[in-house]
């Protein structure tokens, strides 16, 4: 589904990603871990198409198309979804109106008519139930005055409504208490299928107790320095990142 080849990207003169290689197949969950400042969020933003990053080299192949040639909205139309680490407040637009616009813009790109109101309402109801969201929430302005946890839940709610092929969850666990974490993780798990894939970006192992990854990668100084199965996350929890980063630093020296 996704094949990242030697991706180099940065901001202004500062190169952050220094040659990322990563392959993700449909049905898989990949966790990307790593110390602060290793480039995890940059990778998420570059896949989603944030323009302030300069891509200096490499490709991101997504189902046969190079994502780097596409605008952020075109990537979304193809099925890429980013759950933001810091979701943006948009006053004046209700959650329901925002989601409706997103769904219909995507349908428009696929030459489909807008989703009939009845179908939309049913879908909203089903997904709200999945994520234990109450009704009053739909008429609130997008993320305005939301607590950290509410914002994160709103991200997963949008993901549930948009049904993307590739979801990137950027630090979705930060700001969530244990109950909210369970609800969100449960929602993500229920949305998993053999046709979609998920990238879970996290600093801590905690989230991976609930969303079990097929692969774990450690990102350090803009490169993937170690990959393994889910047991790698447990090893990191126990031993920290030092043993990996030291090894990498030695190798690069």
């Amino acid at each position, binding site marked *: 589904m996704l094949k990242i080849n030697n991706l180099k990207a940065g901001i202004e003169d500062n190169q952050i990603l220094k040659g990322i290689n990563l392959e993700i197949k449909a049905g898989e969950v990949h966790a990307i871990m790593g110390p602060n400042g290793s480039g995890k969020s940059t990778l998420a933003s570059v896949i*989603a*198409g*944030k*323009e*302030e990053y300069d891509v200096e080299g490499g490709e991101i192949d997504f189902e046969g198309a190079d994502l780097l040639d596409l*605008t*952020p*909205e075109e*990537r*979304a*139309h193809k099925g890429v*979804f*980013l759950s*933001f680490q810091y*979701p*943006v*407040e*948009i*006053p*004046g*637009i*209700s959650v*329901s*109106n*925002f989601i*409706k*616009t*997103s769904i219909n*813009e*995507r349908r428009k*790109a696929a030459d489909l008519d*807008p989703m009939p109101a009845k179908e939309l309402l049913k879908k909203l109801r089903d997904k709200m139930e999945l994520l234990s969201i109450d009704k009053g929430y739909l008429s609130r302005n997008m993320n305005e005055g939301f607590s950290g946890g509410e914002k994160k839940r709103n991200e997963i709610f*949008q993901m549930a409504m*948009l049904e993307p092929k590739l979801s990137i969850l950027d630090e979705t666990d930060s700001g969530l208490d244990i109950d909210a974490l369970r609800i969100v993780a449960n929602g993500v798990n229920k949305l998993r299928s053999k046709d979609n894939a998920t990238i879970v970006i996290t600093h801590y192992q905690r989230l991976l107790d609930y969303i079990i990854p097929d692969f774990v990668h450690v990102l350090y100084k803009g490169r993937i320095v170690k990959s393994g199965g889910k047991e790698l996350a447990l090893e990191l929890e126990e031993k920290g990142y030092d043993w990996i980063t030291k090894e990498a630093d030695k190798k690069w020296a």
Partner: protein
Amino acid sequence: MGLINNIKSYSEGIQISAEKKEIFSSFLTNGFPTTKDEEWKYTSLKKVIANEYSIENKGEVIDLSVIEKYSLEFENRIIFSDGKLINTPTIKGVSITGFSEFESKTTDSILQLNKALSQNGFTISVDKNTVVENPIEILFLSTTENSFSQYRNQISIGENSEVKFVERIQNINNSASFVNHFTQINCDKNTKSEYNKIQNNTAKSQLIDTVNVYQEQDSTCNINTLIFGGSFTRNNLNFEQNGSNCESNMNGVSVLNDNQLADNHTFVDHKSAHCRSNEMYKGVYLGHSKGIFNGKIMVRPDAQKIDAFQSNNNLLLSNTSSIDSKPQLEIYADDVKCSHGCTIGQLDDDALFYMRSRGIGIEEAKAVLTYAFASEAIENISVEQVKTLAKNLLAQKLNVDLDFSL
């Protein structure tokens, strides 16, 4: 040459009272305001008055279909065609007639000219204890090419009464028209009123619109100004609070492109204690457009316990648009709450990326954010049809097809 001469020759052919002659000669002495006048510092009338105008309006018959095009189709409609009153509704407890003489301030030369020479307009009087359920729509239509027109209107709202208006000044052809419009609103005790101005005239239309509101005790008056069209728009909106517990509310939305200019001058004169005023003006500027906001709040020495709030927020969506914004507070009482704020900015890049990452195209995303920016002021309008029109005009102006309702 130019408008002054057109006006002079017109004045020679008509009979006016000695009092009006005197006012007219003051106008001629003062002339139109220039950018040397403090109140007109950022707004130049030079080009507007350099044109030649036709002052005698032709009075062509306007087809009903044309009227429907510009009407929001309210049941109660007052319609002017080239100054002539062609339709007045019958409403219980409301008297509606044409132009009448009334006392008014002539604080500037624009008002002097209006008082001296205007012969068209409406006079509305709402009885005591009357609630007018349906809004009264007022259409000023003009068929004359390059016309200069003046209207002079008065509304008097009797004690304990409620009424709403929707006004539109509209050119039927696309010539360079210029309108000097004046409306005086007298709000008696315990009245509630709302006046909505839809300023969406053709590309070459020019307008100076002055509204003077006089409020008595316990009255609330809301004036909403929506500027989408016209090449030159100057609004002077003046409130005078003459009794306790008055509330004056102003909401303004300007969405301009090309070389449009819109200037909102507001003045709230707090003469009595325990009163409130709220103003919220939102401006969106594209192309080479220019906005001006000047909000003056005066709190007189005896006007204690005043709560005055003013905000002017602007979005500059092009590198060639501009806004001059000036709050002017004169406070002579010591126990008052007055706040004002002005912001000038662009659309938030993070919010744009957020929306695009959800599949919303960049133009639509900009439109949604712009709508969100303006919506706070639009939401304060109580007449649903006006609210819907404002949203549609906004989408149209930003060139997107968006359904905002859900």
